[in-house]
């Protein structure tokens, strides 16, 4: 409960900081919505030309985009440091967080908010709403799928970037990992062979933030539910273990920094 209160306080502070530059914040949101919409034109053109591809239609793509965009946006908006954790570790900027009696990983991740993430969230929810798959129980499944997606996005990148404790700079590695997991999550898994599908469900968990939740929203199944929840829990636990064991090796840079 205490941790939740702390998390809400961080989010409130981030929102207040964003509101200091209200026009920039709103511009980022609007532009991200437009950006996603323009990108989606590719799928509109594609399905207009080729119709149904192994059971996938433009409506299925709207649902897939809705889930992946919302999960990505929520990760970026609520846990904005999940893409820069490696740099924070490598630059010795964990000192500030270590000196406070709060959960370190959670504190680092939620200390920053990426404003454009809100644009992704709004676009994602709207995309789901107009996909033709919207029902109220479907909305609950959508929420569950997105929550699992957030856990997996954050955990996966935390695992990759925690390698900074051992190998130093992981900027290039995390950029490749990020672009791989995000790009694969936006394509139907029906396009890939069995080996690739297995990889996308395990070491590069893109299917767990895109295709499996989309399948789950379309129709309830215990298999999909198990895959999503087990995936989220396993990745979350694994991320915490790796981060903690890395933290033991952390050496301060003794740099004077101000965290604002």
């Amino acid at each position, binding site marked *: 409960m205490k941790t939740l209160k702390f998390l809400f306080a961080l989010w409130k502070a981030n929102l207040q900081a964003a509101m200091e530059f209200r026009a920039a914040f709103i511009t980022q949101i609007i532009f991200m919505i437009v950006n996603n919409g323009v990108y989606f034109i590719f799928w509109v053109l594609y399905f207009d030309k080729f119709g149904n591809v192994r059971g996938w239609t433009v409506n299925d793509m709207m649902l897939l985009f809705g889930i992946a965009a919302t999960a990505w946006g929520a990760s970026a908006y609520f846990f904005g440091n999940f893409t820069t954790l490696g740099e924070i570790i490598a630059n010795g900027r964990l000192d500030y967080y270590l000196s406070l009696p709060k959960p370190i990983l959670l504190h680092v991740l939620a200390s920053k908010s990426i404003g454009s993430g809100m644009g992704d969230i709004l676009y994602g929810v709207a995309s789901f709403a107009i996909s033709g798959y919207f029902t109220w129980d479907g909305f609950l499944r959508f929420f569950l799928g997105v929550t699992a997606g957030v856990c997996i996005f954050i955990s996966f990148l935390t695992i990759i970037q925690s390698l900074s404790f051992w190998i130093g*700079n992981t900027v290039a590695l995390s950029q490749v990992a990020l672009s791989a997991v995000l790009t694969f999550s936006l394509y139907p898994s029906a396009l890939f062979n069995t080996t690739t599908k297995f990889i996308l469900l395990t070491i590069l968990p893109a299917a767990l933030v895109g295709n499996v939740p989309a399948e789950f929203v379309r129709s309830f199944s215990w298999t999909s539910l198990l895959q999503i929840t087990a995936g989220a829990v396993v990745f979350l636990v694994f991320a915490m273990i790796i981060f903690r064991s890395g933290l033991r090796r952390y050496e301060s840079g003794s740099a004077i920094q101000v965290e604002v």
Partner: protein
Amino acid sequence: MKKYLAIIQMQVINNIAYPGDFLGRSISIGIFLFIFAGLWRTTFAIAGTDVINGLTVSNMLWYLMMAETIELGRPRINRVISEQVKNGEVAYILSKPYNFLLYHFSFGLGDSLMRIVMNIIVGTGVTWILAGTPPSPLGWAMAMVTMVGAWILHFCMMALIGLTAFVVEETNSFELIYQKAVFILGGMLLPLDLFPQWLQSIARVLPFPYMMYAPARLFVKPEWGLFWQMLANQWIWVAVLAGALVLAYRSSEKVLTVNGG
């Protein structure tokens, strides 16, 4: 001229100073090509044909390899200019004995050169495995020639976006929209040949196809008629956008305020 060559050289050295990081970035093109291979093989299999609008699966994958090379190698100069304007570093650069735009042109070129070379090497390797033998030497030659104009067009657009930092706080959003316009109207994700006719007509009067579609299409289907036509249109757009950039820079200079030192 010598000083600009030195800037290019400096950026090339900067890029290869961290080989691990440099190689890591080149892996991205392999990932994208792998996904596109899945998408287009499935599409052709379902369509039950070897050729769609004159393009085979192999043509599609080589086309996408060239398009991705251009996208991943284009200059990211807007971020540099925008940061310099916001943190005041622009005053330091303006006091140096070189032209602001040519400085960034050289800086961007040095930054792009090695990335383009690495993406071509990695992209060619991956696509060769996925799609078979590469296009003819004539295709390579036409692609290389039109890539020069494509790069300059990207530079002009990126610099124009960077200069908007003189009037607005947030410029990254403009880059995102521009990137997606190139993805769609430039024919990066889908060659223009596969567009409906009405959209093809719109795209062809805009600069975007000459930044992406022209080199990639000539790469896989080299035709002299199309080459001269594309090249002429491309350089008309270079003249238009370079002119717009010079004008935008002159008016930005007038609104520049430097406080302190």
